């Protein structure tokens, strides 16, 4: 699986284009989900960072960090996924934001999607779902 085909690739000395490693931000307060998502994204070639709530995700972006994909839990303390997604979009963050939620209520999932998600899955994400995200990311870069 080739990832990291971002537009920010640069030319190496031998003329071969270097591919930037893609990065994923995992936003979840549950340590089990953090671990599962981290392993999945790492296996797919992503550099990963993990935070416990939406505010930490927003603060990272405020400080200048950026990622290729954000896996955003819906229910978290301090700042939940809906609020964090709205804030990130209001800040102009255009990164792919993927909601992951244990919530089964359609109305709540709809509110999450309307906050600005690109996709929404039931948690935990599985490998096939993660691969579909990589496909979409690679398509966008091409």
């Amino acid at each position, binding site marked *: 699986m080739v990832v990291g085909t971002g537009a920010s690739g640069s030319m190496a000395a031998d003329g071969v284009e270097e591919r930037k490693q893609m990065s994923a931000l995992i936003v979840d307060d549950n340590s089990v*989900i953090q*671990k599962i998502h981290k392993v*999945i994204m790492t296996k797919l070639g992503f550099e990963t960072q993990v935070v416990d709530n939406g505010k930490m995700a927003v603060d990272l972006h405020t400080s200048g960090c950026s990622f290729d994909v954000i896996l955003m839990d819906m229910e978290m303390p301090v700042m939940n996924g809906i609020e964090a997604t709205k804030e990130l979009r209001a800040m102009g963050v255009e990164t792919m934001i993927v909601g992951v939620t244990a919530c089964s209520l359609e109305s709540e999932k709809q509110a999450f999607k309307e906050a600005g998600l690109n996709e929404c899955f039931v948690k935990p994400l599985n490998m096939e779902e993660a691969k579909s995200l990589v496909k979409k990311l690679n398509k966008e870069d091409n």
Partner: protein
Amino acid sequence: MVWLWLQGYLDEQFIQLEDLQDDANPNFVEEVVTLFYGDSARLLHSIEQALESNPLDFNGLEAYMHQFKGSCSSIGARKVKSECTQFREYCNARNAEGCIRTFQQVKQEHATLRRKLETYFQALV
């Protein structure tokens, strides 16, 4: 692990975890299960304390159980998850007796699965 799955204790999600285990993450499944039992001990303790209050805060109980059920889903703990669903139904119905009774079932299934998983991991050594 097939027999545990067949007996209904675990579902497809556990197989997904086993598929993620490899040379780079040789103890992944056991590490995830350990994290689960650490987290769940904390949540079960919170629920137990909340069940001692009078009147019961059903919204608070429901929120704790939602978190716990989410954790159960992440390791494929099918029977525990089923009891969690029952508990949440009693919360929504504001049925205190049902909540208290079902919570004992949650704890029992949680403990049973723990014993079975410990046996499984010991057999792998």
